[in-house]
């Protein structure tokens, strides 16, 4: 489907439903789509499962969404930080559920979702508490003398990502380490919404430098 270039962030996040799984890009604040999250707060969707590397920093972006009580569950690798006071308070009060996932598994589970992989065997977390899920130990298998844990994909209903530049087709390029989870999340959600610093005409991005091709991107908004 043709990528929509939205005029406003409100238009970009329209239709996100209660109970959705929302993939939110960023590593800390680098690459975090703060304006899209602000628009999602106004839009009002609640009972969300959020998949993101961290569980909010300071009071902006994901932390603001958490503070509004819109998030039922966080799937992340590193919730506890010096500035994660919003999540810390909610978690200690039992108001948000946490699924802790090693960072590489978080990325690879979304990569698998985007690539149509049903599950994969992975050496990370073997012999640790994170080789168990809510239903008990995860399946393991020995392959060529090494033990692996079976991990399943993480599919998003929606991905909110921050990129640097889009063309009007929806091809994206990123900037420095703000790229982080963006390209992976862009493959793993049914509806992918990108905020960018600028939208340029088709042909203005060198095809050799496109990081996220337009096929993955549904809506773009410049902020």
């Amino acid at each position, binding site marked *: 489907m043709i990528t929509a270039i939205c005029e406003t962030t409100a238009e970009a996040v329209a239709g996100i439903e209660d109970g959705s799984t929302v993939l939110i890009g960023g590593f*800390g604040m*680098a690459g975090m789509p703060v304006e899209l999250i602000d628009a999602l707060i106004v839009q009002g969707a609640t009972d969300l499962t959020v998949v993101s590397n961290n569980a909010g920093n300071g009071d902006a972006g994901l932390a603001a969404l958490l503070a509004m009580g819109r998030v039922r569950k966080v799937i992340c690798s590193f919730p506890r930080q010096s500035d994660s006071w919003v999540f810390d308070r909610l978690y200690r009060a039992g108001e948000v559920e*946490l699924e802790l996932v090693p960072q590489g598994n978080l*990325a690879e589970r979304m990569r698998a979702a985007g690539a149509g992989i049903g599950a994969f065997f992975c050496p*990370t977390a*073997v*012999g640790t508490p994170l080789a168990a899920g809510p239903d008990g130990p995860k399946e393991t298998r020995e392959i060529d003398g090494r033990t692996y844990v079976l991990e399943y994909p993480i599919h998003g209903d929606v991905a909110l990502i921050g990129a640097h530049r889009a063309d009007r087709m929806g091809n994206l390029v990123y900037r*420095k*380490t703000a790229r982080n989870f963006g390209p992976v999340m862009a493959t793993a959600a049914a509806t992918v919404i990108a905020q960018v610093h600028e939208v340029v005409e088709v042909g203005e991005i060198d095809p050799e430098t496109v990081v996220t091709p337009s096929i993955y991107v549904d809506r773009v908004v410049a902020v």
Partner: protein
Amino acid sequence: MTLTKQEMAQLVARDIAPGSFVNLGIGQPTMVADFLEPGSGVVLHTENGMLNMGPAAREGEEDWDLTNAGKEPVTELPGAAYFHHADSFAMMRGGHLDVCVLGAFQVSAGGDLANWHTGAPDAIPAVGGAMDLAIGAKSVFVMMSLFAKDGSPKLVPACTYPLTGVGCVDRVYTEHAVFDIGPSGVTVRETFGLSYDELADRLDVELRPHASH
């Protein structure tokens, strides 16, 4: 004399082969970068998607799109490359990194690592990339104090904290000694401020002296 943290970082840097691809964990391991020889060709990897990461950004020159694993602003060196998270962790898990340097709560005589969670009921667990690094890098170096604040050893027969990885640690740098961990057990490479016998006396782990001792 026991080693300072700077001296420990210097020792680690000395043991990293020229041209290695290296990931330095958050905290004390970050200091190793200060002691890498400029001409060594060591390339630093940061989990959030960059090779050839440079030193911390100077005040006033921070670029918040260019940060390290600790989310502090850094710089890029000539030859730097950016990539997304799945690629970054494929570099770890695929065995492409030569060395990672991590902090630890405990290391066992069999090379098990515990560094992500104290297991305390009120602690909020956070693992980040530690488990991926522990099982992925070709060599896993640990930097830690040899004794906890209560005086108990952190090099132990078996870890009591939740594990990060099993049998993954190759070498441990502490203020009192450097240890190699391998199939033949724990070998003491060097001691600082303690004799080999004093060290053996204070640890519950069976030690072997280095061949040159």
